[in-house]
């Protein structure tokens, strides 16, 4: 800031002025550029022959993936794993494929992203013969040609048992501000929230998607959400809900069940999962189109799909294994905390990926409008 320059008014000065304006933005962007350059410098040597880049969802989930798959895989084989994390941003995959600069090999995607990515051709169809795993052993493997399912996870409601006078038992309680006063956490996205709003408004879970397919049904869902809107804190990353609960920022929140389990089990937080109308969804391994280490990627997925490995993951986080055979080997003590346990399944529903694939754009726009008002 020591430049003592006063710009004189000369003809053609307009352009200099324009450049000055852009240069200040450049100051901001240089930080980003140097970060990118540094990242490239750090990751390039790691992309040598026998390494495979695997992308998962960070936080407590990535810990479980590391312990159950990454570390034993590197011990058992000569391959190396470079791990990365993301929040399901499909654009990152598209940008790599479009620019022909694919640095990720294996990505773990949820059902909706898998279906969209597969249809757009930015992830590859799985060659089950090459993989050496049996497709019919996997839950929902027929939902997409591009996936080897890894887990079944649930979006559930959870609460801090020390902060409520009376334990809530249903989705209706979440919408009842009188009986259960306090802030609520919800994911900043239309899915699951609209389904729950209709359930709380008295729609049977079997009819939720047919009601939601009508304009009146959408209005009804938003009207129900309106009743709690002023008390909602919106979260975007899976690590946020347990944090919001332990900060006392919310009393009740929606969350991914494994994250709550982990906070309750390992950090001894007084969090309780409310299994009523849990929203089930699968996610799984995709191979990015044009992956540079396809063979190693297949070796990794084959390893991660093995029943014993899948069973081992339940020791670290409470998600249902994607390989049906794995359930035989899971530790019985975790069964009550799995979304797939029969007691938890009574009112469960499966997120309708094809409904959302069609309606996400419109409903997200409507949701964004509503949330921003």
């Amino acid at each position, binding site marked *: *800031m*020591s*430049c*003592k320059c*006063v*710009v*004189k*008014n000369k003809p053609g*000065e307009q352009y200099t*002025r324009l450049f*000055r*304006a*852009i240069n*200040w*933005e*450049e100051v*901001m*962007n240089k930080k980003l*550029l140097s970060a990118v350059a540094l990242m490239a410098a750090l990751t390039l040597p790691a992309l040598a022959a026998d390494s495979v880049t695997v992308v998962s969802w960070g936080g407590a989930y990535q810990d479980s993936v590391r312990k159950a798959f990454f570390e034993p895989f590197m011990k058992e084989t000569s391959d190396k794993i470079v791990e990365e994390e993301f*929040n*399901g*941003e*499909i*654009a*990152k995959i*598209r940008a790599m494929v479009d620019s022909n600069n694919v640095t990720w090999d294996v990505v773990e995607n949820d059902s909706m992203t898998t279906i*969209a990515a597969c*249809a*757009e*051709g930015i992830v590859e169809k799985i060659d089950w013969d090459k993989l050496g795993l049996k497709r019919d052993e996997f839950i929902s493997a027929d939902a997409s040609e591009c996936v080897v399912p890894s887990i079944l996870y649930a979006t559930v409601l959870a609460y801090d048992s020390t902060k409520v006078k009376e334990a809530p038992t249903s989705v209706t309680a979440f919408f009842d501000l009188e009986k259960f006063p306090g*802030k609520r956490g919800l994911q*900043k996205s239309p899915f699951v929230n609209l389904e729950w709003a209709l359930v709380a408004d008295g729609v049977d879970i079997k009819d939720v998607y047919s009601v939601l397919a009508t304009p009146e049904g959408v209005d009804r869902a938003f009207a129900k959400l309106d009743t709690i809107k002023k008390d*909602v*804190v*919106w979260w*975007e990353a899976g690590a946020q809900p347990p944090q919001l609960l332990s*900060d*006392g*920022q919310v009393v009740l929140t929606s969350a991914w069940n494994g994250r709550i389990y982990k906070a309750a089990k390992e950090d001894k937080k007084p969090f309780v999962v409310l299994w009523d109308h849990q929203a089930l969804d699968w996610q799984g391994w995709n191979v990015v189109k044009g992956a540079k280490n396809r063979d190693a990627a297949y070796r990794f997925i084959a390893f991660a799909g093995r029943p014993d490995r899948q069973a081992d993951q339940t020791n670290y986080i409470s998600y249902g294994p994607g390989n049906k055979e794995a359930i035989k080997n899971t530790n019985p003590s975790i069964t009550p905390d799995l979304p797939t346990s029969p007691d938890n399944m009574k009112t469960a529903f499966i997120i309708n990926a*094809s409904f959302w*694939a*069609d*309606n*996400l*754009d*419109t409903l*997200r*726009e*409507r949701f*964004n*409008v*509503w*949330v*921003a*008002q």
Partner: protein
Amino acid sequence: MRRRNGLRIFSITPSMTPVGTLGTGLKRQFAIAERRGHFRALLLILPLFLFIVVTFAAPVIMLLTNAVHDPSIAETLPLTVAELKNWDGKDTPSESVYAALVQDFNKAKEANTAALIGKRLNYEVAGVRSKVIASVNKAANISAPPYKEQMIKADKIWGDKLIWSKIKQSGKSLTDFYVLRSLDLQRSGDGNIAAVPKSQAVYLTVLWRTFYISSLVTLITLAMAYPVAFMLAHAPARLSNILLIFVLVPFWTSLLVRSTAWYVLLQDNGPVNDLIQGFHFTDEPFKLIFSRFGTVTAMVHIQLPFTLLPIYSVMKNISPSYMRAARSLGGGPFYSFFRVYLPLTLPGIGAGCLLTFILSLGYYITPALVGGASDQMVSGIIASAMNQENNWGKASALSAILLVATMVLFFVYNRLVGIDKMKFG
């Protein structure tokens, strides 16, 4: 401080020197030497110039073209688009259009572009994505006329005029769809521009909010920075150096760290609320976080040095004799300040405010961390369009609008205040 009028009379410019009288040879040599010097100076800035063009200007321009250039339908349905040129839009198109559609669909199935067509048409007509993809698959079984009848049987959307007018509109590679949507407008079936339904109109609100929050942050930082800059500029050197470190340390701290720190400070059970409740002002925690208050507080904290430093360095260079002269000529303290001191600091105020305002327009992570849902600024929407929705047209259109609006403001500022009056120090 150089004034445009006045000083110029005394300054000596080359044209005023009697070079002409020394002969044209010398004049030419002088000009050549001058030009060589210019050229060498240009070579010095060439690396930076190329760097900016390659890493900044070119990618930005390439990305921004996505806002008005979307060839997806023109490339995937070329025959249909060509046939639709003659369609008057009064009734469903003729048999030849359907024949072209079937042909295009068969190609799309081979090239695996069905999802692309579905996605693009879904922007125009909500909910048709899977119907289009299914129709692409069904079209493979249609080998003989009548195509029209069979396509409508495959899915009744093909019997609706709306989808055809949308294909016709989006068949042009150069499209205004994304820009219009970013301004809460759209083209109806007959091609007229109309407002989108209220339940979809969000972008103007968010754009307006972005400019509002940025202005608010700029004004607050100015009100806070001016007295501090004055104190820094006029305190004894040792004291002012220590004080300056207080300003600079946060300046050197990462934006993310500071936003997160505010998240901790402002939460319901955080230190600030504990303090307020400790004084028994209120039993309920104040809504400090996830609100406009939280957003503005954190942004003001981050932007304060950007406003302060230019003002400070301008003040530092103002000779104390000006104020003494004003006072000795009989001006009261306020009168002297407003007539003499304040105008002298205007270049610094201009620079600081413009810097803060333009940087504030791009805020993304701070509103997401400490703001509520109704504090999201346009960068947040751009990020979501880019990352979550995979809709780069929309992201580019919003970015372009933000960029143009910023440039307009910049030129208005230039007209009113004059960029030459701006001083960064």
